């Protein structure tokens, strides 16, 4: 598999350390010291606060009377951020001894909390490899994952994870706060007690949001799958690889092609990489890749026999049909691009190389010939289904490879459309004058392409992208059904779209879950309403009153947590 670290690696480590902290605390409390535990808890809360700064709305965008009400998750974000601010303030107020860097804590609880903070910090660093700030402080994306990182589904999954950590940590730290105190520990214990109360408040607000609009397993999987933004090494094939290595090569080359397309799609009009040679090469190699995708998907459909996999097989066949349509779209686009040129010639952009690599890698997987290349010539037979996935357990990996390739085709098609649009808007699209009618006597080898040329190319790119998206969506359905490792790709596309919508919305904090058909934020039963349901109460009047009580309770909690410096934090449950 691709060996890029993912956010899940660090979140899992943080979860493991928290579990170890709780277990260590339950096993032996003798070495625990309030001052030390408070210091370590502050480390964790500090990094959690930074996560919240990344995702919570800024104070300037806080709801006012004129703005629409926040959704459950919007409220949870604000409450969580405030809770962490209060928790950190209490710990700083009452904790004046901090360990020097590099000095290990004495107790297991404190050591594991320190390790949790390190894991969370590293995870946040990983997320930030996809983001940047411009000179004016505006958020910029450094990869195609940037929109996913900042999308509401991912942010909600992240908030739910932070709440889980807070919920696990608080009871153990509260035990330390409530242990026998002495003069030198009393202040630290007060700080710990207050901080734990705020951690429980954080968890409570997130749980309320989760009940109203649950974080799906898919969204959580997507959060865990966010990879480190580093260039992947180019796959080098020597022809002797086992089929499993070819899966990896296809996935790696698809990820490289997707990233190159993302980078090239935003190239300015003057870019020397914007050449017809590149556009043609991408269209030709993507035609071949889409053709390989169709071969692979049909072969996988043939490999999945049996009544229990009928749905998967049907999805694979639909995906193969759509991949065929994408191939036809690419072919028409390639032919249309064969009729144009640009003012910069004989230069291939990096994205053309990546598209060629993907065609090569998918070809090695699709054909029986282990030495197949784009210039191998005719006469190559498809790889038999039994060879494509020798064991049933290989099917998910093989499907992941095909799915990644289909998904990369979407990025390539949209990037192609943007490059054509950019070239046309800058009058850089040309046609050979010899191809024009004799009546047009132009004393130069090339002339500007007519608007119809550009419109036709844009229309073809759009159609191709839509067919590729359909192929990827169908492959994604099959991937979800057999839990192929690529199943997060569909969620990533959805999250990126939601993230794009949210980032362009003037009401970003409220944009996440989306209103229901009545135009009101979605609301699921609260605690009182749920209790009536459990009792079998169906009376609309009683249920409405229960809903009002739930809503009033939620407002009361929000109001209480929002009054900074006026109240002591709520006491946490032991």
């Amino acid at each position: 598999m691709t060996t890029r670290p993912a956010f899940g690696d660090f979140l899992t480590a943080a979860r493991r350390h928290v579990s170890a902290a709780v277990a260590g605390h339950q096993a032996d409390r003798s070495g625990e010291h309030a001052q030390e535990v408070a210091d370590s808890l502050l480390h964790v809360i500090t990094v959690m606060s930074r996560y919240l700064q990344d995702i919570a709305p800024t104070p300037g965008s806080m709801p006012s009377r004129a703005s629409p009400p926040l959704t459950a998750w919007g409220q949870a974000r604000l409450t969580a951020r405030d809770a962490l601010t209060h928790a950190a303030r209490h710990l700083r107020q009452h904790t004046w001894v901090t360990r020097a860097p590099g000095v290990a804590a004495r107790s297991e609880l404190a050591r594991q909390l320190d390790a949790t903070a390190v894991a969370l910090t590293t995870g946040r660093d990983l997320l930030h490899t996809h983001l940047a700030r411009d000179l004016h402080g505006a958020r910029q994306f450094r990869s195609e994952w940037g929109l996913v990182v900042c999308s509401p589904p991912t942010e909600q999954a992240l908030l739910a994870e932070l709440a889980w950590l807070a919920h696990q940590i608080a009871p153990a730290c509260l035990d330390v706060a409530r242990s026998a105190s002495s003069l030198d520990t009393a202040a630290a214990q007060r700080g710990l007690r207050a901080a734990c109360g705020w951690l429980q408040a954080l968890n409570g607000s997130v749980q309320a949001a989760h009940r109203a609009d649950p974080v799906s397993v898919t969204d959580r999987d997507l959060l865990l799958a966010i990879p480190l933004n580093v260039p992947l090494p180019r796959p080098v094939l020597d022809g002797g690889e086992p089929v499993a290595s070819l899966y990896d090569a296809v996935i790696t080359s698809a990820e490289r092609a997707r990233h190159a397309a993302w980078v090239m799609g935003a190239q300015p009009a003057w870019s020397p990489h914007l050449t017809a040679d590149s556009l043609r090469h991408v269209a030709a190699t993507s035609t071949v890749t889409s053709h390989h995708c169709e071969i692979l998907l049909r072969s996988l459909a043939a490999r999945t026999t049996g009544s229990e996999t009928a749905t998967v097989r049907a999805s694979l066949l639909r995906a193969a049909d759509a991949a065929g349509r994408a191939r036809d779209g690419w072919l028409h686009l390639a032919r249309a691009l064969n009729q144009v040129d640009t003012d910069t010639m004989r230069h291939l952009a990096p994205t053309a190389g990546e598209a060629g690599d993907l065609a090569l890698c998918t070809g090695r997987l699709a054909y029986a010939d282990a030495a197949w290349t784009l210039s191998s010539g005719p006469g190559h037979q498809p790889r038999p289904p039994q060879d494509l996935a020798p064991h049933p357990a290989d099917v998910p990996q093989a499907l992941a490879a095909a799915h990644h390739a289909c998904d990369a085709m979407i990025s390539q098609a949209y990037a192609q459309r943007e490059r054509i649009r950019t070239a046309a808007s800058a009058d850089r699209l040309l046609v050979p004058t010899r191809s024009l009618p004799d009546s047009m006597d132009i004393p130069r080898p090339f002339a500007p392409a007519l608007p119809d040329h550009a419109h036709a190319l844009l229309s073809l790119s759009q159609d191709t992208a839509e067919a590729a998206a359909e192929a990827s969506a169908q492959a994604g359905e099959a991937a979800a059904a057999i839990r192929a490792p690529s199943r997060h790709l569909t969620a990533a596309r959805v999250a990126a779209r939601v993230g794009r919508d949210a980032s362009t919305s003037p009401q970003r904090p409220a944009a996440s879950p989306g209103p229901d058909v009545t135009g009101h934020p979605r609301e699921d039963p609260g605690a009182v309403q749920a209790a009536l349901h459990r009792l079998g109460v169906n009376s609309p009047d009683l249920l409405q009153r229960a809903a009002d009580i739930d809503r009033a309770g939620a407002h009361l909690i929000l109001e209480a947590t929002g009054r900074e410096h006026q109240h002591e934090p709520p006491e946490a449950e032991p």
Partner: protein
Amino acid sequence: MMDTAQQRLQEADGLAAVLDAAYAAFEGMLSVIYPVQDPASGLFAAFVMAAASAADGRNALALAPSLPGHPLLAVPAEQKPWSGEPPERVAEEVAGLSHLMAERLTRTAASAPDTGDRAACRHAAQSARDICGMLSTGA
């Protein structure tokens, strides 16, 4: 059509005539390749890549300063661009023509006095070699 293009290229005399014949040959390749780009054929990928190379080669020649502004020989109206030959036969013919073009353009590049003509011929010769490699059965 390939026979006509081959004959024109063999008989072309002088730089302008060679450039004109090679340009027309690349155009002719495109018109015979498109109809046989059939996904069901084992030649599909080869034909797709060959068409891109043919367009590359043609566009390279369009930049040659000595290429005449208009075709020296108009395509006869009765000539059909596609004769219904099987893909394998088309591949063979296009590969043969591209082999000849590569040789002729390489020789022309060596003797052309103008730098622009030399560069155009070299680039187009490379495209022709690529096509030959993609469509030759023995490759």
